[in-house]
């Protein structure tokens, strides 16, 4: 079968030149496009974060005007969420899911091409607002009405259409992933033998289909309020700004799980590989993921404890939020139990995965603190919230993406990356992330509000520390980029299995993975209980 795949490559290699990338329907090409796009957006959004941290290095206004500062916080959030994290996971899904389930390609290859190529245009439009009269959107990534309607800059219309386009792209990507997993599994790959990355992505894709249209709906309502005289969110016309927050967070809370469930899948591959043990509690991992997805739909109002909810509402959302800690705790337990008595080695992907387990759990704990409604009145809209969601997103989602990149890079390119540089990248990132975000817990508890360009003097020291950490973290990503480029250009060749403890169909293919793989599906019906 392997020789067959290699022989095929000679006849059906990719066409040369730029049009290969524009016209491609190959899942590996599209995965690469998504990942490169995501990396570019990560660096763009990162530069904006550094503008923010540079301004906050000292109290007072030094570098930028408050108006521009607000545009930076808004664009940083939007770009990182919709441009960096989400496309990175879609890219990884494109590359790996067909190989993991033994499919020749994604189920709907042409739609796949379309769903990627919408994205550069959406983000070109969004970034273009920075150069428009009145400036870019400045109302925060959560774009609460009436800030984003009555008081918005004129560029808000471009922002709305950019969100529409990203939404369409994500929905098409999600449909493709569901169709691939449900229809194209190799014979004998039952649902409970599905690799966990595929499982977590399947559930994520259903979340995307459920909530991205709601996001499209809420921006459409904004569009109608701004241009067509409706009053969905305008109190003067009988609308209600609080309705905006309800609809936004009905999308927004599942969205945060969209950004973390695929990460759970990745970590569930990497830890068993480098602990050289099978994953502990595979079925409980699947059920925990499904429970988290279900719970994500009934907890949204914990983002809005301070809007004036009745006591019964506060209690319901407080307890349902705390319930999420149970399935999440099951997952963390399973990862730790997988490592227990394993023969662990600490290559770069494993280091990132271990940091994920520890630091994501810290983010989870601060989430539990925020879930306590009575104390949330103190934490709401402070840097404590910023610390919380950066802990779950940076050493959570982003670290898992970096771990996945190092883990699968030898499979993609056929070469090992530079392990020495990879370790440097890890340790600088690990230290940088903690120096940046840990002090934010303290300044948040002490009362420093989010989204301000200037602050009271008592917050000065911790802010300076955070800014130093941010530059350390930001600059160390250049090592990551350099390491990837060097690895693509050449290096120590990898065999098909790449890692000693790696299990799964993708490791039966040669490295680099041939352009067309599994044109005849592998038959798993003979094999036993391995998943």
């Amino acid at each position, binding site marked *: 079968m392997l020789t067959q795949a290699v022989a095929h490559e000679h006849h059906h290699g990719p066409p040369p030149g730029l049009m290969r990338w524009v016209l491609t329907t190959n899942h590996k090409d599209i995965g690469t496009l998504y990942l490169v796009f995501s990396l570019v957006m990560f660096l763009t959004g990162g530069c904006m974060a550094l503008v923010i941290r540079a301004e906050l290095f000292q109290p007072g206004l030094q570098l930028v005007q408050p108006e521009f500062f607000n545009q930076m916080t808004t664009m940083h959030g939007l770009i990182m969420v919709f441009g960096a994290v989400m496309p990175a996971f879609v890219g990884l899904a494109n590359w790996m899911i067909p190989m993991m389930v033994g499919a020749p390609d994604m*189920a*709907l290859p042409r*739609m796949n091409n379309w769903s990627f190529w919408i994205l550069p245009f959406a983000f070109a439009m969004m970034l273009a607002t920075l150069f428009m009269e009145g400036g870019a959107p400045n109302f925060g990534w959560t774009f609460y009405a009436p800030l984003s309607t009555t008081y918005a800059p004129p560029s808000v219309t471009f922002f709305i259409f950019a969100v529409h386009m990203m939404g369409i792209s994500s*929905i098409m990507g*999600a*449909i*493709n992933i*569901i*169709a691939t997993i*449900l*229809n*194209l599994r190799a014979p004998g790959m039952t649902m409970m033998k599905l690799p966990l990355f595929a499982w977590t992505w399947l559930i994520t894709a259903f979340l995307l*289909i*459920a*909530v*991205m*249209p*709601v*996001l*499209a*709906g*809420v921006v*459409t*309502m904004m569009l109608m309020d701004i241009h067509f*005289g*409706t*009053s*969905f969110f305008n*109190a*003067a*016309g*009988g*609308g*209600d700004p609080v*309705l905006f927050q*309800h*609809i936004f967070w*009905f*999308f927004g809370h599942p969205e945060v799980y969209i950004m973390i469930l695929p990460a759970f899948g990745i970590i569930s591959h990497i830890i068993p590989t480098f602990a050289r043990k099978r994953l502990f509690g595979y079925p409980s991992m699947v059920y925990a993921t499904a429970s988290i997805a279900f719970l994500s739909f009934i907890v949204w109002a914990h983002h809005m404890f301070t809007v004036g*909810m*009745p006591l019964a*509402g506060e209690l319901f959302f407080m307890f349902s939020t705390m319930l999420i800690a149970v399935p999440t705790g099951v997952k963390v337990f399973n990862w730790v139990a997988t490592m227990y008595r394993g023969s662990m080695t600490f290559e770069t992907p494993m280091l990132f995965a271990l940091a994920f387990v520890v630091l994501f759990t810290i983010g989870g704990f601060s989430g539990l603190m925020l879930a306590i409604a009575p104390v949330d009145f103190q934490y709401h809209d402070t840097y404590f919230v910023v610390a919380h969601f950066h802990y779950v997103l940076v050493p959570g989602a982003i670290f898992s993406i970096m771990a996945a990149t190092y883990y699968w890079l030898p499979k993609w390119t056929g070469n090992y990356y530079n392990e020495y540089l990879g370790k440097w990248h890890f340790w600088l990132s690990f230290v940088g992330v903690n120096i940046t975000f840990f002090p934010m817990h303290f300044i948040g508890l002490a009362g420093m509000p989010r989204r301000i360009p200037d602050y009271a003097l008592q917050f000065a020291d911790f802010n300076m520390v955070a800014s130093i950490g941010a530059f350390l973290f930001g600059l160390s990503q250049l090592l990551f980029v350099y390491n990837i480029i060097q690895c693509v250009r050449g290096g120590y060749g990898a065999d098909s299995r790449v890692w000693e403890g790696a299990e799964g169909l993708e490791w039966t293919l040669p490295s680099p993975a041939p352009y067309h793989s599994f044109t005849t599906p592998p038959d798993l019906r003979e094999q036993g209980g391995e998943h």
Partner: protein
Amino acid sequence: MSATTANRRLALRLALAAVLMFGFGFLLSPLYDVFCRVTGINGKVTRTGAVTEAVQVDAARQVRVQLIAVNNEGMPWGFRPEQHQLSVHPGEQTLIHYVAHNPTAVEMVARAVPSVAPAEAASYVQKVNCFCFEAQTLAGSASQRMPLVLMIDPQLPAHIETITLSYTLFDITADQVGHQSAPQQPSARRVSL
């Protein structure tokens, strides 16, 4: 090919689900109103119009009613209640006036958006008549007294001793001029008090 057909059918079903969820997003808007009306948690009075059933006046009990007037940002009108606080017996109908004055030289249209605190009391307040039911137009430099007739239901829970009625006045002159020929906004989004 059957595999292609299966993929296409699944993709269409999922796309349909996405379209339905888009509709659901819009449906959340009226659902929100219905939910607030049923549970009464938004401090909005839903009982309006004449009292149809005979209500026994509870002369033994007094409820304090506080009145608040707020101008929304940029609204230049003078706007206040004639009295800030009064005591009423549950079951009796009380007439109260708010006073509005338009200090500008041009005709303006305003709408008052009401709210009741505590929210629990909202479902026991009946507004027989209220200036907030419709938009108020005032010529330049004109003043007017605007009536409010309300009745507190004797069923009001005993622990509620004070009810606060708040009105926020919005300038909707621009909306009225811009949409004179257009029909009223969709009824689902209108507050029903």
